[in-house]
């Protein structure tokens, strides 16, 4: 072989290797996971907690956009559901069909989640719900690609009834059968589901349910409902609502002289303390709220050691976005934790074990998730129900906690294992709604 031919051969080899290398590099650069993120940034739900969820998810997504996951770039494309189910469906479909996202993440309102989950399932796209809690999203639907780490609405309702049941005799001085309870809820998928849990819990505890009623969250007047509550004379009011319906109900309750021993809320509007305080002033003192625990209230010692620095990071980033907030809402941590769970557990497994980010790989990776209690920022563990189970896609290990607002601070009061202090029950004499 002549020197010229050898040189040409070597040159060709170098060029081929370089070309292959460049191609490989280009391919590596194109490894990207596009996530369609849907929350309500306008409309009544935005101020009711959805915007806070968006902030929590974005903090974590921005964090991983910088680092990527297992060689994949993360690109988030945000959409506004405008507090309307039809817009949520349209935006989800647009993100999948036009923006070509690989998966969807977010969703605050159960009224949106129920139809969107069905549509996304039809499109065979992976959907990671960070927030909406209604059982109707998953129950009996056997969805393959929809997953929710969040505890379900009926769990919320059951938990609060159990809390009052365990304290009825000692704190309220009544046998459960003598305790008069009222269950009030907004009439969307979320309120109805929580109220079902409430009803089941009340039946189990043997409470006397004196009123159970739903109302439209946009109703301009709730005075007739307050009058009925006065007539029913409940000891404890269990309420599920968004905002501003919560402030309207409680303002009219004050004006009409409704009295009770305790008020127990169930997330959503009750999770945004700043707004409750602004609308109700000092009356909000001693109200209970049920939600997944605020990540800033979890006991660090019970958590996986890698989580406390992340919690601190989310808190610092949130303070930059909304400085001077008295109580960081649990909403922020909920979305942050559930997004972090996906990006650090499900996604790496899908890439490493199942070879990619398609819906099938993500689904298999999610079904493999097996995190013990203390393994998420929200304190609970994660194990999803699989195909054929009643709530396929639901995390079986999720649980909410009950917090109480006392003098501009929130304390976990139930379950006992997480409690930071004893619950103040009943409402102290002299407070606006106290019947003492």
């Amino acid at each position: 072989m002549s020197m010229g031919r050898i040189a040409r051969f070597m040159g060709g080899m170098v060029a081929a290797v370089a070309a292959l290398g460049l191609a490989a590099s280009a391919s590596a650069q194109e490894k990207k996971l596009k996530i369609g993120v849907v929350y309500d940034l306008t409309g009544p739900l935005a101020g009711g907690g959805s915007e806070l969820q968006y902030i929590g998810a974005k903090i974590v997504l921005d964090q991983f956009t910088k680092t990527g996951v297992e060689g994949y770039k993360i690109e988030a494309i945000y959409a506004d559901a405008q507090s309307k189910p039809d817009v949520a469906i349209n935006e989800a479909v647009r993100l999948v069909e036009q923006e070509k996202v690989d998966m969807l993440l977010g969703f605050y309102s159960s009224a949106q989640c129920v139809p969107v989950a069905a549509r996304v399932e039809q499109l065979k796209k992976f959907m990671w719900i960070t927030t909406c809690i209604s059982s109707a999203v998953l129950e009996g639907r056997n969805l393959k690609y929809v997953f929710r780490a969040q505890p379900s609405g009926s769990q919320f309702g059951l938990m609060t009834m159990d809390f009052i049941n365990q304290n009825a005799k000692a704190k309220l001085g009544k046998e459960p059968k003598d305790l008069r309870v009222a269950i009030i809820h907004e009439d969307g998928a979320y309120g109805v589901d929580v109220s079902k849990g409430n009803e089941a819990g009340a039946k189990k505890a043997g409470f006397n349910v004196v009123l159970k009623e739903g109302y439209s969250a946009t109703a301009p007047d709730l005075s007739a409902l307050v009058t009925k509550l006065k007539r029913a004379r409940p000891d404890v009011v269990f309420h599920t609502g968004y905002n501003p319906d919560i402030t309207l109900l409680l303002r009219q309750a004050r004006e009409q002289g409704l009295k009770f021993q305790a008020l127990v809320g169930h997330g959503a509007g009750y999770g945004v303390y700043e707004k409750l305080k602004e609308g109700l002033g000092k009356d909000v003192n001693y109200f209970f709220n049920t939600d997944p625990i605020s990540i800033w209230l979890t006991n660090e010692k019970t958590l996986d050691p890698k989580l406390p620095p992340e919690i601190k990071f989310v808190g610092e980033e949130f303070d930059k976005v909304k400085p001077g907030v008295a109580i960081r809402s649990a909403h922020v941590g909920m979305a942050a934790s559930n997004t972090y769970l996906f990006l650090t557990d499900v996604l790496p497994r899908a890439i490493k074990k199942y070879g990619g980010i398609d819906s099938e790989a993500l689904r298999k990776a999610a079904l493999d998730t097996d995190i013990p209690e203390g393994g998420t920022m929200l304190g609970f563990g994660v194990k999803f129900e699989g195909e054929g189970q009643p709530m396929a896609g639901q995390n079986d290990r999720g649980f909410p906690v009950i917090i109480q607002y006392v003098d501009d601070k929130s304390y976990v009061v139930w379950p006992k294992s997480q409690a930071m202090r004893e619950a103040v029950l009943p409402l102290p004499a002299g407070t606006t709604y106290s019947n003492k």
Partner: protein
Amino acid sequence: MESFLEIFDIYLLEAVVNGILLGGLLALLALGLNLIFGVIDVTWICYAELVMIGMYGMYFLVQYYGISYFLAAPVAIALVAILGALLHFLVIAPLLSGPPINQLLATGGVLFVLQSFATVAFGIDFRNLGIRLPVLAFAEMHFSYARLLAFGAALIGMVVVYLFMTRTYTGTAIRAIAQDRQIMALMGVDTKKIYLITSAVGGALAGLAACLLVLQYDVHPFVGLSFGPITFLICVLGGLGNFVGGFVAAFVFAEIISLGGLFSDLEWGYVLAFVFFIIMMFVRPGGLLARRQ
């Protein structure tokens, strides 16, 4: 018989009175919308959004600038009055000779513009004036002062508008134009000026409603959604442009909501009110107080 009598308790009376107070609130809202329709023959679909802007005006004047509520109220009323006049000048006037559907769609467009403007300018937060009015207790019944104020304002507003329309030259001109838009211009009345005045008065009534609503409701860009449709229905039920009819319709509607909600689920109160509306549209399409044709 005993169980039948059981429902006649103090709570029933409270519900009746609360229905009357809610009626006052709705009547106040319907007053301005009726005025505009009666004279200009245009329905401001965006009427509740003008109320929303007025509520924001009150919020910022009281909370940010520390102006007392009673000083802020006239400013907010003037602000919405100007907005009403502007709405007529910029949107309605150019379309007055066009088909009515164009005016309806245009004010529908303004509704979305105002909602979006409020979202961009004021954010999505719910804002509260933070004024806690005392509660009026009577026997075992309790009533909202804010509602009583709204009720009183609706009554006074109704009387003032009535006197304005019947005892002043401008009012007479307004009524004359309402009867025949074309002929009054031939008789030397400046119809453009009258329209502008009417729009400003309609806006001022929206502003007055805003001043009273802000005492009871949180302000947010979509607060109009809670009141807009129901106000429109009341105006139609009373006969668009008929003040007294609108006033009566507001109380009928409110009582059905209040008592229906007391005896059944709250939502059934609204369903009954809407069923009543539909039936009345068949029985008296011209409105509750319209003469039979």
